[in-house]
């Protein structure tokens, strides 16, 4: 019987971790400006140009990309499991839209009196993620409520209400965009397209913190997530309280999505693609699928962002365009395959 054992768990995660470290290192060296690694390393603390670029520009951005890629993939995995739908992902369900709206409202109504200039940056790691978290949680609850009839979740309604909520929110965001001043609007637009940019280590650290807390919380629910994919009734027969699990997953993933969206906007399709590829490669046991998808998502977004930085250098593409470029066709392919298998959708 081939089932998940400790050996496989350790082996798969180690291989992915090594790949992630290699990717992060490689991506820190790649960019519009050539970087001499030996120069950068020898002057790491004395500070020459190479070291400055590596430490101040590239490394924080790569670290942020890894966290966000991993977080998106993790959220994709848990939402797919919880909603019993392999096509669910934060973007499709209107959740990242909700988070964006929350974040934008957070930016517009930023309480300057609460964060005086000196500690203004603290808003970036507390106030805006909080607003985005609430937006994500609210839209998740809304979409969920609208697809629940007689205690049953309807996959059709779920995807449709998600898509509709997303366009509705997009309209509100566009409205807000047209009433704020020009500079704010430019910023919002770039943010909306989903982009990574270099952030202070403090911000990167906090985003990592939120994402890791959410991830560990969800990972501890791995076994219950396995059971919930069998349907709510079957899960109850196997000792799971679906309501409690749903609440915890909604809160934990909203926390992650809020943190992610507050720094990078909506980066689509990572949460859809990575879990699927991982399931094909290593199976559906969430105790392994969750960490593997986190690492895989980190690797994927790390490279996607490098692509976005290098392709039109010195100009820069929003990374959301790169992920959507791969993700769109991939989603259509999945939809087609699921249709042929005549599964739940």
């Amino acid at each position, binding site marked *: *019987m081939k089932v998940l054992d400790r050996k496989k768990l350790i082996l798969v995660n180690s291989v992915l971790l090594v790949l992630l470290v290699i990717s992060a290192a490689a991506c820190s060296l790649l960019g519009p400006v050539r970087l001499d690694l030996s120069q950068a390393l020898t002057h790491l603390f004395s500070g020459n140009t190479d070291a400055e670029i590596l430490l101040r520009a590239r490394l924080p951005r790569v670290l942020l990309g890894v966290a966000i890629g991993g977080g998106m993939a993790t959220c994709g995995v848990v939402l797919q499991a919880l909603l019993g739908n392999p096509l669910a992902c934060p973007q499709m369900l209107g959740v990242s839209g909700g988070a964006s709206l929350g974040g934008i409202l957070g930016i517009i109504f930023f309480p300057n009196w609460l964060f005086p200039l000196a500690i203004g940056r603290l808003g970036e790691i507390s106030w805006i993620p909080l607003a985005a978290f609430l937006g994500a949680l609210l839209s998740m609850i809304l979409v969920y409520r609208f697809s629940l009839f007689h205690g049953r979740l309807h996959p059709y309604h779920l995807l449709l209400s998600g898509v509709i909520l997303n366009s509705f929110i997009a309209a509100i965001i566009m409205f807000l965009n047209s009433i704020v001043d020009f500079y704010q609007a430019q910023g919002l637009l770039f943010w909306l397209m989903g982009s990574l940019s270099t952030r202070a280590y403090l911000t990167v650290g906090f985003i990592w913190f939120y994402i890791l807390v959410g991830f560990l919380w969800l990972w501890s629910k*791995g076994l219950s997530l396995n*059971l919930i994919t069998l349907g709510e009734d079957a899960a109850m027969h196997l*000792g799971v309280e679906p309501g409690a699990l749903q609440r915890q997953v909604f809160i934990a993933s909203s926390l992650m999505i809020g943190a992610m969206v507050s720094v990078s906007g909506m980066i689509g399709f990572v949460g859809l693609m990575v879990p699927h590829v991982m399931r094909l490669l290593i199976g559906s046991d969430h105790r392994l699928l969750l960490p593997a998808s986190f690492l895989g998502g980190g690797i994927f977004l790390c490279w996607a962002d490098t692509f976005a930085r290098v392709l039109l250098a010195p100009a820069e593409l929003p990374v959301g365009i790169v992920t959507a470029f791969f993700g769109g066709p991939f989603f259509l392919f999945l939809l087609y395959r699921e249709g042929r298998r005549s599964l739940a959708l």
Partner: protein
Amino acid sequence: MNAIEINHLTFGYKDRAVLHNVSLSVASGQMVGILGPNGSGKTTLLKIFSGLLRGEGELKIKGKNIQSYNRRELSQLFAVVQQEARINFPYSAAEIVLMGRAIYHSPITLENRHDLEVARTSMDLTDSLGFADRYLHELSGGEKQRVLIARALAQEPEILLLDEPSAFLDLRHQIQMFELLLRLNRERGLTIVAALHDLNLAALFFPRLVILCDGRIHRDGAPGEVLTENTIQEVYGIRVRIEHDSASQKPQLFICPAVSA
């Protein structure tokens, strides 16, 4: 002792009552078949037993009120084989069976050697070990059903509830499954309650039959007492002739339709 005991239990969805004032007890180690037409409340009754639905009235499991058990305790007592199992994710048969062990180990650990052993034994019993490593969605309806029964057995329950377990099985596998249930009942003292459609197979394998009709218990007793021409006419509205098999002395139905080929 009674494994399950319900007294004056009523259950309904918003606009329509499904069970009316039902009282029924199942002794430990008994094997009971629940019969009745579509919509008579069989599935609902099973869901109430396993704590999925809650009706008005008293429900005692092993002498204690069902409210005094938590979900995990209940799932160590009951295993359920559902009518339809929709699984959208690629799990192998072995993984599905091992999920039956989830109620015994901590949520953040992997299954230990004992869990694997129990899973293997359960698959062996249901003749499903041969496709342990294949994906569940690739299996035929019958193979899938045997995997789900294996999962129920892997829970090592005291009470096994089955909702039309033979629906997707061919005749050979139906017989094999009922023989297995009978063996589990006799050798391990497993209490079994199954909602059934096939009256003849029910009469052959179940020592006690309960007929539900419109949410009420219509008949309750041994197959010979329960399956009579009159009862079938009342409950199902069809004419049958009943003869007793000379070897087993079990009643068997012959259908007498108004028109036949």
